[in-house]
């Protein structure tokens, strides 16, 4: 084993580097990751290279002050930065400065403390959602474990040395205690550390799964809610639409949520069917700012509902049979998404999540949000009605109004902003009927379109069926006659919606939705915009939809009138949208789907593990124990036979492709390692100044000398950088002639090859092997007794 000091320094460096990279991953800044990684690598070569330079204590303090100034400047310049990010940057700067320092015990302890704090801050920042981050965290834990154990061994030796100094009374300077080890210490250390690590992991997993979960303390919830509510994460989704000029781009492919749809317990998701994931509603268009928004009055009418353990019935007596299990991986603002079929009604009737204490629900526009921001990940279930027509007054208003809601919802104390729900809410002037920009021109256009389809031009008193036909006809016209593009219309004097309808006839989903809303409103059909996502990427590994930031979408909701309810109409040409949202196919696409699936499982089983999961798990474990060993074997056999039947050729093909990918990855890593090792060997042998061919040949032939040095280093004998190989050999031979006798001939051989231009022929090679073996035997026997 190398000297424990050196071993620890290597591990500590890897630990710090992993911590820094983890924070960069959590923050989602690859450029910062590159800079930090490069600085860390340079610091290793500076401090651990042949010259072993490093910053002195004074410069170190200056560097720490620089880190303080850096964070202060960041705080002043970027006021919106989260505290955890600022703290993370400060720790990052400190660690980089410390990496460049001459490391005494003090610096080592500082690094050992800062690094886990950095990882914790990365986890708080939301990095734990990613599977890569989770794997990195696992690797980090093991590296930290190894580093901690090495540090403990090193510290024990230093402690004894300190005792010796004290015992010597200052009259002598005692020698450092020799690193006494038995044979196979490296193997034993690694195996022990692995055993300890796995043991810790097992206990941690057991504790994680079985420690009883309770409802969250309201005080802690409010604290955490405040802390994260100030820092919404980017999710590609906006609760306000501004029709600006320029390109909106394709968006980030980062996953936002996973969506599993069931009906009567069966999955209803498929590759061929898309769904609208509804987040926010905008019913007012401001032509001055060209913005769609939700008027403050609507927000003031939200009901604040307490979430019971059994779930919240938004429409009492109706539970719905279609259910969406949504795993929200990046909480943006405070919206809870619901699912809508294209052309279907918007009527969430049931919501269940143990992660939230209260939700705000609007019976008018069916928007759900919550101020409880417990974590960046939330899993909840929502059910909705899917009948052709849904009378919302029946669903929500009639059942809510005039009843003792406190009694109905069990402990719901605070009504919207402290007021009782009012009937007048429904009688407020409806903004969804008013189109403010060139209403006559738009009306004429809409009427012309409807007449061309043989439909009547006015719909103020129409039936739901008539309204639906008219809305569908208008949407169909937009889908057919307009072109989808992610480039915004020209920013000119003309209103963008008017420009879209009459000039450009091309735009993105927001313009299509705005255009349809304008057309509908102009003929007397209430319409509004909804924003969210279009879920079309189906993961066949897991049987769910993956919703990414780039899937952000806008569509139109149309009120079909009494007995009809609000329905979703998507005027955007579906083929072009699906092409834009199209996931990769082929091997890469399969690999990505597999990764997504693994990440989803990671989130579903670890990140969002909660009380309900725990009860379910413990219940199934109890049932498993009750079944007895005979049934266990029968279950296992059944599972295996079932799996054998379901494994198809395409699955094998996918698996084969992934294996090939992994093999290629391993080959690349091995090659990189080989090159790195060869470079290090050349540096250690001081061959870098020689011509390329010569240094490669010498590096290959002089491997035996490196091996000899490593063997000696394992037993605490290190060649100082100021010592020539001969001086080193002489010193060893003088101190312990019997033990280190083989070092002399090996060093002579080194000189013959390195400077005498002799080849390491068979004869020399056999002698080298003999001497190395003798040296190892000598050292092993010396260690043993």
């Amino acid at each position, binding site marked *: 084993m190398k000297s424990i000091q050196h071993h620890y320094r290597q591990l500590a460096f890897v630990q710090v580097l992993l911590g820094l990279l983890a924070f960069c991953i959590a923050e989602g800044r690859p450029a910062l990751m590159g800079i930090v990684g490069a600085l860390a690598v340079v610091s290793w070569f500076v401090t651990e290279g042949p010259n072993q330079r490093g910053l002195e204590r004074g410069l170190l303090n200056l560097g720490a002050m620089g880190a303080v100034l850096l964070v202060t400047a960041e705080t002043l310049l970027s006021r919106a930065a989260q505290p955890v990010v600022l703290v993370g940057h400060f720790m990052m700067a400190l660690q980089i400065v410390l990496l460049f320092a001459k490391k005494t015990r003090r610096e080592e302890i500082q690094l050992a403390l800062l690094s886990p704090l950095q990882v914790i801050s990365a986890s708080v920042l939301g990095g734990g959602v990613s599977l890569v981050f989770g794997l990195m965290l696992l690797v980090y834990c093991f590296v930290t474990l190894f580093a901690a154990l090495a540090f*403990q*061994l090193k510290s024990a030796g230093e402690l*004894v040395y300190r005792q010796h100094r004290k015992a010597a009374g200052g009259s002598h300077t005692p020698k450092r205690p020799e690193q006494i*080890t038995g044979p196979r*210490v490296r193997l034993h250390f690694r195996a*022990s550390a692995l055993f300890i690590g796995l043991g810790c992991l097992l206990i941690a997993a057991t*504790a994680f799964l079985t420690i009883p979960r309770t409802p969250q303390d309201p005080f802690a919830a409010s604290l955490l809610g405040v802390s994260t509510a100030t820092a919404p994460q980017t999710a590609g989704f906006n609760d306000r639409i501004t029709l600006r000029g320029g390109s909106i781009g394709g968006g980030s492919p980062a996953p936002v949520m996973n969506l599993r749809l069931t009906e009567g317990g069966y999955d209803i998701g498929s590759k061929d069917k898309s769904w609208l994931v509804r987040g926010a509603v905008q019913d007012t268009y401001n032509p001055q700012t060209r913005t769609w928004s939700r008027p403050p009055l609507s927000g003031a009418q939200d009901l604040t509902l307490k979430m019971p353990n059994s779930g919240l019935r938004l429409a009492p007596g109706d539970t719905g049979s279609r259910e969406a299990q949504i795993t929200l991986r990046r909480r943006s603002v405070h919206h809870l998404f619901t699912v809508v079929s294209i052309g279907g009604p918007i009527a969430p009737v049931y919501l269940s999540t143990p992660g939230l204490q209260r939700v705000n629900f609007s019976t008018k526009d069916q928007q759900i949000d919550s101020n409880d921001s417990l974590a960046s990940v939330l899993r909840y279930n929502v059910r909705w009605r899917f009948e052709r027509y849904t009378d919302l007054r029946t669903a929500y208003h009639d059942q809510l109004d005039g009843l003792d809601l406190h009694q109905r919802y069990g402990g719901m104390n605070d009504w919207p902003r402290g007021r009782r729900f009012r009937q007048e809410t429904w009688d407020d002037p409806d903004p969804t009927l008013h189109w403010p920009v060139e209403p006559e021109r738009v009306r004429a256009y809409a009427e012309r379109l409807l007449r061309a389809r043989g439909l009547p031009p006015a719909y103020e008193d129409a039936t739901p069926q008539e309204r639906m036909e008219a809305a569908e006809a208008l949407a169909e016209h937009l889908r057919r006659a307009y072109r989808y593009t992610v480039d915004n219309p020209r920013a000119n004097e003309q209103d963008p919606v008017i420009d879209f309808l009459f000039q450009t006839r091309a735009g993105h989903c927001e313009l299509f939705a705005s255009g349809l809303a304008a057309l509908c409103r102009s003929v007397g059909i209430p319409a509004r915009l909804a924003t969210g996502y279009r879920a079309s990427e189906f993961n066949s590994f897991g049987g769910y939809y993956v919703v990414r930031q780039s899937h952000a979408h806008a569509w139109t909701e149309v009120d079909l009138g009494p007995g009809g309810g609000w329905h979703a109409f998507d005027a955007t040409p579906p083929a072009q949208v699906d092409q834009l949202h199209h996931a990769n196919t082929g091997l890469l696409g399969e690999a990505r789907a597999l990764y997504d699936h693994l990440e989803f499982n990671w989130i579903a089983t670890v990140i969002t593990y909660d009380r309900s999961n725990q009860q379910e798990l413990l219940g199934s474990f109890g049932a498993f124990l009750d079944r007895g060993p005979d049934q266990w074997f029968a279950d296992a056999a059944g599972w295996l036979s079932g799996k054998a039947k379901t494994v198809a050729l395409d699955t094998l093909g996918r698996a084969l492709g992934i294996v090939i990918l992994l093999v290629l990855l391993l080959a690349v890593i091995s090659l990189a390692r080989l090159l790195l090792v060869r470079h290090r060997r050349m540096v250690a042998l001081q061959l870098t100044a020689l011509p390329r061919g010569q240094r490669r040949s010498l590096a290959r032939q002089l491997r035996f000398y490196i091996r000899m040095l490593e063997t000696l280093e394992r037993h605490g004998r290190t060649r100082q950088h100021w010592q020539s190989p001969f001086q080193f050999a002489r010193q060893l031979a003088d101190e312990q002639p019997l033990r280190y006798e083989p070092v002399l001939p090996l060093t002579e051989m080194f000189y013959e090859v390195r400077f005498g231009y002799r080849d390491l022929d068979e004869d020399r090679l056999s002698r080298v092997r003999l001497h190395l073996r003798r040296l190892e035997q000598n050292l092993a026997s010396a260690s043993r007794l």
Partner: protein
Amino acid sequence: MPSPSHSRLTIGPSGGVYLFVLAASMVAAHYTQANLMFLVVGMLLGALLISLLWVWLTMRGIELERQPIDHGVTGDELVMRYLLTNQAKLPAFSLVLTETWSRRRDAETTDPLRELPPRLLERPSGWVMHLGPGQSVQAQTACWPMRRGDLTLSHVALHSDFPFGLVRRVIRFDQPGSVLVLPRLYRVTRGVMTKITRLDAGGYHQLDKEGGSEEFFALRDYRMGDSLKVIDWKHSAKIGKLVSRELTQPVPPSLVIYLDLSEYAPARAGEAPPTLDAQAMRRVDRAVDLSASLVCDAYQAGYRVGLIVNGADVPPMRAHHSLPHRGRLLEALARLTPGSAPALQRYTGEAPSVIIRPGRTRTQAVRSGRRAVVLSGEDLESLCIASDSRNLLAARTSPTARRLATPTLQSNAGKTHAPQPAPQPAQP
């Protein structure tokens, strides 16, 4: 191989802090219900339990035996060696050995750290980084004794807090024993040795007895077995029978040290000795150190060395040159207790060459007609130079010492300095 007699688990300060952190994390996890906190709690709990399990398993099969040790030297590193064997199935890491003594007052052996002045400043400790299953290693502890005498040993404690340093298991082995700690040894300066050498007649003459190999001593009748070289053919021819020559044997210089501790001894037998304060004890020790240094140096130079102690229960030892004799002298000096015998009223033994007194007061003549060098323990620094005691205690005489013993160098030594007027030997 001895097995442990006592075993216990302890949680040190770091373990206490760790438990506090664990409790705080549990409270935080309970209130926040955050998965990250539950994971942290699990990891902390896992580390604690694994630490407990690991130390319990790995320390079960450790056996230890202290290797016999001859002696140590005051102020020098005293290395004690142990044979450690791991009979368990798991490797043990970070084993720390410590010599311990019972803290009870009625214990047979006293804690050398609690003696006044302390015999040791810190407990002897050593470290073994790794001991694999079924392996044996030789470990060592080191200490620096501050005082001469017997260092009694009682137990060896072996502890390990691997992994994480949270829980420590200490196992104790009863290993009674003792180590004789010799007085502090210095190399006497050359001037002092020269002075001492010139006072002694030995070394200038041949011993008037046969059996040597140097100068002619006498003639005698030829005896069967005599070498042909020793036959004096001329005389044999004259008297008509074989006559052999006998050669003289060189007389090595002798050094008789008179350590005068009479001022710390009771006047008469049966009287209680005066109580020595720390200052007096230090003076006595310095005188003893000087005596021991002279013994070793003289032995290396090939001198015969004798020792007379006045005021302590040490029998007079005649001048003699041998390794066991030197060992006996050093042992006597190491165990010397001032005041353990009454002061001598009359000394009639071998004339001393050196008189050593603890204090600075001038000594009286020991014996009229012979001169002796009077040295004071207080002048230790000026008389001696710091030396590596291992060289002084070497069993073989050094080449320099052998050269000093040759007649040439002896005669040269006689020319270098005139003998200094020395005080008259005291009349005992």
